[in-house]
């Protein structure tokens, strides 16, 4: 590797070229979790869903909770990254890729939960053969497919210039992989123009797709007339919750990567502070929507709704409900209100709390309603067995393993975007700032900017 060519950004290739003992230890631990999940799945596949805690009326438990949770986390990436790109938030540069990777990885894991929940995965073929678009489950399949494809392309396109750097600087077995994925990138003005245009189009497209994904996930619940599911605000409630958990997951990933790879020069306290403020806003929005949702149900006092309501507040689900409130509201509020000092530690702790709280929120939506159904089924309790615990642990292990492998193969912080920030972004921000002022000059033409950008990068 040539440090001279890469200059001060050579540090960003360190995770790729150096493999420490920690990597093998991490992979071994994750491998054990995945093995537990695999054994659990094989047992379930062999003996049927009877080995889980799922039964009538609680036919959705951990799997659907995990599905909603993982799909929610996927809003970390593409949505946040796209919004920051479109609003030209310059502080986005070191964090966008981390966010985009989370999206692609968790979408795979999230969609996999439905396969696990099927019990008979061969019946998946029935969706292809006899699917009916009247079912929100099929809306889900369509929008998640679109989001997965859009997110993968949106992750891949900004990765191309960095893959070309790897192709040109690294030898060995991986050179073939990088040569294929670099798509002949040499950084010409023409290539830069095409790439920038495609990234801009995708950034615009992924925002409505991402919003549609979690809205449609909420429709799986709200299109039924089950108590505390049949709600008009479930769409925005789910989207807000998804962005909330997504930002939290991103901050946790940033904290871990900063610590392990010593990226303090790239992931500065200011990045955590800005995301911390976003998290604080989402905390308040989440509380507002939760309050509106529960107050409306309580005020109506419909008997079936109230059974679910009280089962959460004081009944068998109270530990989960109040733990959710503490994790999603109390802890973040305490930690995020003042971020002038120890911004990194405070935001990471608050984010871990939110990730746990949002998983509990999904559980509190799925299970209490099914335990107290509207139809005259007997009430039911849900106790997950080691099968569900194993598959949950395996799913988290698989997600983290995918992430670790990505970090081992590609720069987790975009090298070219950091360079572009230094060489073009600073000038652009100055020009933009001048145009905001009353006697400011007109902004430079887009063509000239593209030319400058290409020249800086080649």
């Amino acid at each position, binding site marked *: 590797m040539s440090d001279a060519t890469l200059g001060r950004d050579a540090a960003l290739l360190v995770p790729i070229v150096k493999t420490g003992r920690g990597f093998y230890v991490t992979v071994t631990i994750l491998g054990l979790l995945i093995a537990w999940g695999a054994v659990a799945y094989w047992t379930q596949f062999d003996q049927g869903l009877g080995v889980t805690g799922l039964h009538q009326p609680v036919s959705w438990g951990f799997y659907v909770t995990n599905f909603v949770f993982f799909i929610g986390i996927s809003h970390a990436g593409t949505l946040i990254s796209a919004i920051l790109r479109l609003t030209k938030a310059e502080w986005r540069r070191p964090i966008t890729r981390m966010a985009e990777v989370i999206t692609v990885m968790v979408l795979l894991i999230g969609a996999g939960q439905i396969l696990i929940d099927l019990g008979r995965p061969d019946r998946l073929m029935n969706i292809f053969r006899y699917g*009916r678009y009247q079912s929100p489950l099929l809306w889900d399949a369509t*929008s998640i497919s*679109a989001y997965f494809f859009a997110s993968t*392309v949106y992750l891949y396109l900004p990765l191309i210039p960095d893959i070309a750097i790897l192709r040109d600087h690294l030898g060995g077995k991986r050179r073939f992989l990088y040569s294929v994925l670099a*798509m*002949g990138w040499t950084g010409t003005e023409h*290539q830069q123009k*095409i790439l920038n245009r*495609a990234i801009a189009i995708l950034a615009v*497209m992924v925002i409505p797709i991402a919003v549609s994904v979690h809205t449609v996930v909420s429709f799986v619940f709200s299109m039924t007339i089950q108590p505390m599911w049949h709600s008009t605000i479930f769409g925005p409630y789910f989207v807000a919750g998804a962005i909330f958990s997504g930002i939290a997951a991103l901050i946790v990933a940033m904290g871990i990567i900063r610590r392990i790879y010593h990226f303090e020069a790239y992931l500065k306290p200011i990045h955590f502070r800005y995301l911390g403020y976003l998290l604080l806003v989402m905390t308040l929005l989440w509380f507002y929507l939760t309050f509106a949702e529960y107050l409306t149900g309580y005020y109506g006092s419909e008997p079936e709704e109230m059974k679910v309501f009280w089962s959460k507040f004081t009944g068998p689900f109270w530990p989960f409900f109040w733990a959710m409130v503490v994790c999603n509201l109390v802890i973040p509020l305490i930690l995020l209100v003042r971020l002038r000092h120890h911004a990194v530690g405070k935001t990471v702790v608050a984010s871990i709390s939110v990730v746990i709280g949002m998983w509990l929120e999904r559980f509190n939506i799925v299970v209490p309603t099914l335990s107290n159904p509207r139809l005259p089924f007997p009430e039911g309790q849900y106790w997950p067995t080691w099968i569900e615990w194993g598959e949950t642990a395996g799913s988290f292990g698989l997600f983290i393993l995918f992430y670790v492998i990505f970090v081992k193969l590609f720069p987790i912080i975009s090298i070219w975007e950091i360079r572009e920030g230094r060489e073009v972004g600073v000038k652009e921000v100055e020009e933009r700032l001048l145009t905001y002022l009353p006697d400011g000059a007109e902004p430079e033409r887009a063509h000239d900017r593209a030319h400058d950008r290409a020249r800086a990068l080649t």
Partner: protein
Amino acid sequence: MSRPDPAFERTVRIFQWAIAGSTLVFISSIVLWIVHLIRTAWSLGDVPSASIGISLVAIPVFLTLLGVGLSVFWGLLRGGGPR
């Protein structure tokens, strides 16, 4: 920099075309699947309006995504210069 091995370059190019081809197959499969669902709903008289309504949004989205992906693929391969 040494001149790249032509056989290596050819293999790389084949894999790149394979990626583009897979993308095309993937998106085409989804579009065909959606069309199949419309046909099934139509033949059964099973609320075809739902299928048509959703596919009016879904199919253009998938095709646009495919168009963006392929235009980048084609543009990068054609617009490259010397390394």
